[in-house]
């Protein structure tokens, strides 16, 4: 699989984990960061001060694990791109905890990616701590599994910290996907954006729960949340729950959540030009998803994904 997988040594630093344990065999040394495997499952990865990691760091997960603990630390001014990918169709990764600590001025671009894997069970909890002037852009792509739950608990502890979370999810044929976000603005001048889109069809179930908390002492905070969902069949279900807890007056916060079917006028328009109904639905679904996919700075690892 190594040769045909997009995650090869030319493209990225590949760190494979099987059943929770790091498999050092194929990783090319030296690495521009310190990697300490956790014997109980997981690892600690530390990027030193002002280091700019030249290639993405790809964590590839397979197998089964009841608990994994990772910690990613970027020291002052460090910059990196990381991809957390699950490609194993039989993967069962429960209680995977991933701590991300960004020191002052650190910048991380992070991808959580899982293609459609019908039997996969993946439950991941991200704990994000950001210090002053740090930036995290997180992209969460969950394309279907038996049970996919991604929880993100983020604390913006330092002033001018910036967190942007973008996600796409879908649930088909009795699949379940749940995205739970909680972003706490602890310091002034912090900014966050949450932009998630998804759909459920057949007997799929999709849940989005997005919380923004602005602490009492945090002034001049800007926080926005948008969640758009398509409910594509009578047997599917979508639940969206925006929550805002704002304990300070001097803030700009917005949220918007929608659930609906495809635009009937647009469907008719396509059909009136000779496009068959199902093809027209696919075109509109692809357009819906592409609003997220077009925002991914890196998409080479998506391969031949047919996400519709």
């Amino acid at each position, binding site marked *: 699989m190594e040769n045909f997988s997009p995650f090869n040594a030319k493209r990225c630093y590949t760190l494979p984990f099987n059943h929770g344990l790091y498999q050092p065999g194929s990783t090319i040394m030296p690495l521009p960061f310190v990697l300490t495997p956790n014997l109980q499952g997981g690892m600690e990865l530390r990027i030193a001060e002002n280091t700019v990691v030249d290639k993405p760091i790809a964590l590839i997960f397979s197998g089964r694990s009841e608990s994994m603990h990772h910690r990613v630390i970027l020291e002052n001014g460090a910059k990196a791109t990381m991809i957390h990918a699950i490609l194993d169709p039989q993967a069962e990764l429960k209680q995977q905890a991933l701590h991300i600590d960004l020191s002052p001025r650190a910048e991380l671009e992070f991808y959580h990616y899982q293609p459609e894997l019908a039997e996969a069970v993946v439950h991941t909890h991200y704990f994000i701590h950001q210090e002053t002037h740090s930036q995290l852009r997180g992209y969460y792509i969950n394309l279907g599994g038996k049970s996919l739950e991604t929880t993100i608990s983020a604390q913006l502890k330092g002033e001018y910290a910036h967190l942007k979370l973008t996600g796409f999810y879908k649930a088909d044929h009795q699949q379940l996907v749940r995205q739970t976000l909680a972003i706490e603005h602890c310091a002034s001048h912090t900014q966050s954006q949450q932009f998630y889109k998804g759909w459920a069809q057949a007997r799929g179930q999709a849940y989005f729960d997005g919380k923004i908390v602005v602490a009492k002492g945090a002034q001049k905070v800007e926080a926005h949340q948008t969640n758009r969902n398509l409910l594509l069949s009578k047997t599917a279900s979508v639940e969206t729950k925006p929550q805002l807890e704002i304990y300070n007056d001097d803030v700009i916060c917005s949220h918007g959540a929608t659930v609906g079917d495809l635009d009937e006028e*647009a469907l008719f328009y396509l*059909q*009136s030009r000779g496009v068959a*109904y199902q093809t027209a639905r696919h075109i*509109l679904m692809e*357009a819906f998803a592409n609003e997220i996919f077009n925002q991914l700075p890196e998409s080479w690892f998506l391969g031949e994904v047919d996400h519709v």
Partner: protein
Amino acid sequence: MLVIKNLHVSVDDKPILKGLNLHLPPGKVHAIMGPNGSGKSTLANVLAGKPSYTITDGEIILKGVKINELKPEERARAGLFLASQYPVEIPGVNNLYFMRTAYNELRKHRQEAPLDTIDFMALAKQKAHTVGLSESFLNRAVNEGFSGGEKKRNEILQMLLLEPSMAVMDETDSGLDVDALRLIGTAVNTLRQADRSFLIITHYPRLLDYIEPDVVHVMVQGRFQQSGSKALAHQLEKEGYGEFLTV
């Protein structure tokens, strides 16, 4: 080409078309004029097969085939085209991609080979030029952010590409300035031929100065009250619909 017999159509249980009859032979241009609320757009939409319109009586026959039950895509494949009054915006769907998909679907139906991306782009650019749309409109999402006039031009561009046998134009002239009107009129005239018919729905006779109709129908309260030559259009412009509304 198109025969409509005693057509009754309701929208939300409200009767809009009340026994409409039309005989439109191949190669002819018929115009329909009428006051607001007369049912002109209802006729256009029910011809194209829009879902919320219910045919309660009567028949629509296109090229000898009754199309009442046909889906919109089946009517398009049979050669029908509707240039909408209010073209919908479709964010995220590329205009060129959409037109190429529609074009190749029709070719597939006629068992002709599809046109590849490059050849289609060249064709689309050339046709876009004739309706005064620059190449940039091909790269944008369908109708997204287009002005009213640009949306109408995009409709006519699609008509030029898809070459329908029965083209229905629903108030294409609203939102077009004088120059655009002339351009559209010229473009549509290039499509006039013995095996193609046009049904032009309009409030004003300006477009009919460029695309001369063979017959003008006056539509009031869901039916044609009178039919005549192009002179009827100018009479309406001068005198209004007053005498027809008392019927």
